[in-house]
């Protein structure tokens, strides 16, 4: 593995990874009798692509939901940018700069692609209701300025042609891309992707992988992603957390994880004691 210290490390392809932006400490999350996450700790560093993998039901989505404030863990602490995060509502977490996509697409079906992506900008828009109702001053200036940023993202993800299309009419692959656009529009400091390539064909997966790499490369966005396709994970990620039955069974570079006996067992389905 690469040299790692508090300042960060340098990846094999020469990208500089910074210090820790988000740290999960001893997280335990229960739903009644079901323990979805059992005492898990890991960190996410500035500028890296961090993967979370594991078999179905391992607790990966639950972990993203803890990060985005949708679930509150019974035990454990979330540290963000060097401070312990108090209990927060999901919209407050979003406004801190944590954006995400969902395993089952969660777009606003009745709105156009443009409006969906513009909604992603809401943490950058502050005009009051009165200004908005007159479409004057700050309201108008904000609309134009934020539209420019949104158009850049629309160009970047190559969805110009469907800008004005209601999202409900789009095919699955494009919806996934629009959802990524909406998350990117927030200019997040951490981007959470829950199975961004699920249900895609090979070509769409390649496109999506390229977008993820480009986002990380061009905007320096820190990315945490869940993915089942091992090929994709190995190609994209800098470090990998492996979960199984709510427990962390591996954490390290793709190579380390691939050679970890526990991980191999989990994926080959060795009986649990």
């Amino acid at each position, binding site marked *: 593995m690469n040299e790692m210290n508090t300042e960060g490390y340098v990846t094999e392809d020469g990208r500089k990874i910074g210090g820790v932006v988000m740290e999960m400490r001893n997280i335990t999350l229960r739903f009644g009798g079901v323990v979805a996450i059992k005492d898990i700790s890991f960190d996410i560093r500035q500028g890296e692509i961090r993967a979370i993998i594991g078999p179905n039901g391992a607790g990966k989505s639950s972990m993203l939901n803890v990060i985005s404030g949708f679930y509150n863990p019974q035990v454990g602490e979330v540290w963000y940018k060097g401070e312990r995060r108090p209990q927060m509502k999901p919209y407050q977490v979003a406004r801190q700069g944590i954006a995400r996509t*969902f395993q089952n697409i969660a777009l606003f079906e009745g709105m156009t692609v443009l409006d969906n992506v513009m909604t992603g900008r809401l943490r950058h828009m502050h005009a009051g*209701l009165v200004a*908005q109702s007159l479409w004057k001053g700050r309201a108008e200036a904000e609309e134009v300025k934020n539209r420019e940023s949104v158009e850049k993202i629309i160009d970047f993800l190559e969805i110009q042609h469907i800008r004005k299309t209601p999202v409900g009419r789009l095919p699955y692959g494009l919806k996934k891309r629009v959802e990524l656009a909406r998350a990117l529009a927030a200019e997040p400091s951490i981007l959470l992707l829950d199975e961004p390539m699920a249900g895609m064909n090979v070509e769409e997966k390649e496109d999506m992988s390229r977008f993820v790499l480009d986002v990380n490369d061009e905007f320096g966005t820190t990315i945490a992603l869940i993915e089942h396709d091992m090929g994709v994970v190995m190609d994209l990620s800098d470090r990998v957390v492996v979960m199984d039955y709510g427990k962390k069974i591996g954490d390290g570079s793709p190579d380390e994880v691939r050679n970890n006996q526990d991980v191999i067992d989990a994926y080959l389905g060795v009986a649990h004691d």
Partner: protein
Amino acid sequence: MFYREAGDFKTSYAEDTQTFPIRFDRYRYFAVLAVAFLVVPFVINDYWLNAVFLPFLIYSIAAIGLNILVGYCGQVSLGTGGFMAVGAYACYKLMTAFPDVNIFFHVIIAGGVTAAVGTLFGLPSLRIKGFYLAVATLAAQFFLVWLFNRVPWFYNYSASGQINAPERTIFGIPVTGAETAPWATYLLCLVFLTASALIARNLTRGMAGRKWMAIRDMDIAAEIIGVNPLRAKLSAFAVSSFFVGIAGALFFAVYLGAVEVGEVFGINKSFLVLFMVIIGGLGSIFGSFAGAAFLVLLPVLLKNLLVGGLGWPTDLAAHLEFIIVGGLIVTFLVAEPHGLAQLWRVAKEKLRLWPFPH
């Protein structure tokens, strides 16, 4: 006809977000405004005013208000009648308590009072949705009518229990009371409708509208990308009730002049405005106009055609009206939730491509 986007290139994002991006639509809009402000006031008479224009203008304001709540924010309300009553009674109390203040401001403040009451009754929407919310707003409807009936303070202890609008003027011209001229009341309501439509349009094309629609389409996703559901829903209730309150104030002070609350602002009114929104088109400002026009004109048309023309009995024509409205509601709900506005949009879409549809 040259109904085209081609050759009408947008060179800035500000131009692209304007209300009527296609030049022809813009011209038609100005033409309608010009006729409404410069022609109609000179030709309008009492019959047209009371049978068609005043109800159309005032119901359009109410429908715009309700559409913001139901069509844009996805929160069902059956309390429109009750909220119109709040606007009416607020206006009445203001008119009688502050006779020196212009009625124009009374109407606006009545809207503000209704916004506050609407926000209060919107609080349950934070916990309950859909059918249950509809029932809660229905309770608001009955409660408000009961309140205005039972507490004499609201009708200034008058013996009849009614409220009556005293004469008030704007620039010396009477707009309420017995001595009004048709053009004056028409213009007053037209000004309120135009302003309401502009404000509603601006709100719905900007961030406020996006937040409302996000809540409507998927509230959990909306919250996770940063929409505060409490503020989004309550602001929809506030803005919606503001317009509904203005409509109620005008309905009482300018249109009817005297109101008995149970009769005028009962549950029927809630359904009437809801039907306007459904038939006109959920989530469309233009649809609010279309729905109001349709439901105001339909009875007038049937009466003139069937009763006046063919000599049918009046009650038969009224029954036919129920059947038509009922049938349309079902049809639109099942086949075209975006209502008349969508039919119009599809027609324009076809026209834009005509005569080469491919």
